């Protein structure tokens, strides 16, 4: 076998092995999307009820609560960025990080310092490499977050929020979250949302039907709000994590599908090249034999 043909065959073998891996990853991600979507759906009733309750309390009570009133002179903002722990998901993590950069630029324009809270190894790696300050980081659960994980993150954010940002350097006045919204199998958008202070009108959840009833609060609106808002933030963070997880799987499936398709194309063109090389080798051998036979024939006829 000629050298050229051997090189082509070797490359084909390597591409085929890679294709097997990407194909397997594609199938795994595809099956996990469904599970992740179900978890998003399962967490929706809780989030909806909570949103409904928060808007009811915020609408019908005149209580001034630190979690709902914007600071008059905001100094710092916390930005929570949710990314993946692993790569091989196309631009998934990068999109979220880029969205974070945009939000940070926007906040800086308003004169706020940005404190970064990061979820997922990809964001942590990005910030570490650039020697940026990280206020909080959590890794290891990006593809399958639990409520406990969300609570840990949310509690850190709330703790920073309740500190007085005017006097305490670790206190923040605003909390923003960047996550990847799972719209469908094909569309996922990285988006930034302000979590605190509260924007009472929520567009992502369907508006409550009809007017909200006049609630009686037990024991009173202030206490209810105190108890409600941390849970609300936890549920929001949890929902953001679940959607991001579903998006991560969808992004990985798509990336792996195109990798598999590219491997197919590559194998096809390598096969063509290998065939041509083999044919060229055969042609050359034939012409060598024919040439050799001719030379032999003319040599023997000349000696007669």
């Amino acid at each position, binding site marked *: 076998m000629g050298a050229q043909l051997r090189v082509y065959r070797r490359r084909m073998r390597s591409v085929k092995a890679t294709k097997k891996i990407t194909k397997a990853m594609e199938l795994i991600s595809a099956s996990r999307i469904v599970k992740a979507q179900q978890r998003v759906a399962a967490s929706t009733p809780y989030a909806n009820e909570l949103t409904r309750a928060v808007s009811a309390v915020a609408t019908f009570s005149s209580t001034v609560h630190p979690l709902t009133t914007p600071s008059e002179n905001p100094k710092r903002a916390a930005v929570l960025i949710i990314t993946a722990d692993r790569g091989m998901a196309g631009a998934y993590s990068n999109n979220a990080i880029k969205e974070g950069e945009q939000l940070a630029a926007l906040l800086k324009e308003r004169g706020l310092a940005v404190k970064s809270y990061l979820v997922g190894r990809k964001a942590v790696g990005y910030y570490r490499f650039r020697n940026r300050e990280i206020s909080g980081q959590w890794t290891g659960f990006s593809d399958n977050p639990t*409520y406990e994980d969300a609570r840990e993150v949310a509690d850190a954010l709330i703790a920073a929020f309740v500190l007085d940002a005017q006097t305490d350097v670790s206190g923040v006045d605003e909390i923003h979250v960047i996550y990847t919204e799972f719209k469908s199998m094909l569309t996922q958008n990285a988006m930034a949302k302000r979590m605190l202070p509260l924007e009472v009108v929520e567009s992502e959840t369907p508006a409550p039907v009809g007017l909200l*009833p006049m*609630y009686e609060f037990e024991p009173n609106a202030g206490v209810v709000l105190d108890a409600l808002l941390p849970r609300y933030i936890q549920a929001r963070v949890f929902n953001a994590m679940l959607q991001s997880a579903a998006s991560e799987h969808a992004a990985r499936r798509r990336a792996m599908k195109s990798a598999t398709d590219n491997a197919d194309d590559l194998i096809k063109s390598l096969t063509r090249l290998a065939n041509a090389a083999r044919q060229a080798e055969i042609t050359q051998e034939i012409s060598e034999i024919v040439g050799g036979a001719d030379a032999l024939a003319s040599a023997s006829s000349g000696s007669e």
Partner: protein
Amino acid sequence: MTLKVELVSPAERVWSGEAVSVSARTVEGDIGILTDHTPLFGVLVDGQVSIEASDGSTTEFKVSGGFLSVANNRVSILTESVG
């Protein structure tokens, strides 16, 4: 006339259906909800929530804190974990 009851946790909808009465423990004490209860929003403490379904069966849940909201014969109980 029955109550539409939903007991939900962050991970799943634990119970939903029609019920005759619901009782739970709020920070102010035990509370029982029947139909046409006035709109109420209460903070729950750790304890039992019992739901008497329309078919007469009673289901009890152990909840760890949470909220109870009642409006227009619709009762939602939100809790972080159900034991």
